[in-house]
């Protein structure tokens, strides 16, 4: 199963997105510290949810004008988490 990781600068932004997703029925969304593999060395926060929620996430970001940074796919390959940017 693949996950969607949406990175945000502020933890407030990440929590706002998580909450809006939960209002829209996505109860699996959760705020996480951005994984180092997709971070530029510093701290930031992301929302992790199921990849099949991508269109819902995009819809909420647009309608609520939530400023996120990037989208990544998180997959498990040989027991390890692998990330790829979503264009």
């Amino acid at each position: 199963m693949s996950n969607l990781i949406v990175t945000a600068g502020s933890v407030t932004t990440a929590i706002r997105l998580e909450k809006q997703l939960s209002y829209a029925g996505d109860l699996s969304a959760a705020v996480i510290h951005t994984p180092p593999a997709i971070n530029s060395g510093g701290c930031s926060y992301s929302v992790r949810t199921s990849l099949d929620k991508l269109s819902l996430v995009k819809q909420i970001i647009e309608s609520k004008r939530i400023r996120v940074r990037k989208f990544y796919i998180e997959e498990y390959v040989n027991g390890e988490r692998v990330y790829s940017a979503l264009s």
Partner: protein
Amino acid sequence: MLYLDNAATSFKKPSRVYFSMMKNTITNSANSGRGGHFYSLRATKKIYDTTEAICTLFNIENPERIAYTQNATYALNMGILGVLDKNSHVIITQMEHNSVIRPVTKACRHSVIKADRHGRIRPSDILRAIRYNTKMIISTHASNVCGTIMPISKISEIAHGNGLLFMVDAAQTAGCLPIDVQKDGIDIMAFSGHKGLMTPMGVGGLYVGENIDIEPIITGGTGSLSESAVQPDFMPDMLQSGTLNAPAIIAAKESIDLILKETPGAIGDKERELAVRLIEDLKNIDKIQIYGLGNEKDRNGTVAFNVKGLDSVMCAQILNDEYKICTRGGWHCAYPAHCALGSEKNGAVRASFGYFNTARDVQKLTDAVYKISKKFN
């Protein structure tokens, strides 16, 4: 003791605020926005719940536009020093508190709109004060001395009609007067939690509208962009450095929910009624000077008065010592406002009503003032 100093802080809070404060000091004192562990995120989410309640109260669309501060003074300093520079010009009213006057004096040149003997300003005077380099108009929402409410919607129209920012000091009105940042045309607003919002001390905030150019005056750890030596440029992190007072902010939701239920308008009306009742009662006593408006609509629950022949600080001391009533004498960190009201020589005794006061409290104060006036005249 009878507490009548709600313009300084609401001493008594709804009991659910105390319980929440205690509970969250134990359970949610992890550092919000620092790391991704369970306790930190739980505290952050609860803080965000309070932010959403504040957004509902003030009709703020985007919760990210609110930065928490220790109090309204910090918020005002952030809004003033973060927007203005030495080449700017700013317009303020004569009824401002020192938490506006002092940062403005530090920041740039400013013009003061004179108030009349009741603490009212004429919005048309603002138009005449606008200069080529005027950047912002700042107004208190209500005087902390005499309770006169400023016409903020009219001031906002003037500001926006001339391409200026409009900043409101809502320290005296948040929670006890309706505030709608969109309808009222507020670009930046500082508020305190511990007064009308009845939160624990150490909670205040600054609302900054979208696309407003503001620089942080405090920089440091935000839990974001740790690799950068430069402060983040996104809200609220840009204006929110250092550890937040999580238990107090979380407890704030309890009182704000209560206010939302009862409505700020209804709470303000009740406080205003007590103030008007006090004014009417004091009018029946000889040798009492009352400052500000009487029973007009544009006043809140704060009343300023003096017993003629008696210094205001002394009068407040007697009320405390002999009648166990807490009021505040002096100049209330707002000397120019006293100059407008005519109380600059001795200051004034300020009685300010809050959520928990009743008509009985008015009676008790009136009786005490009557006895004092007899004794000293």
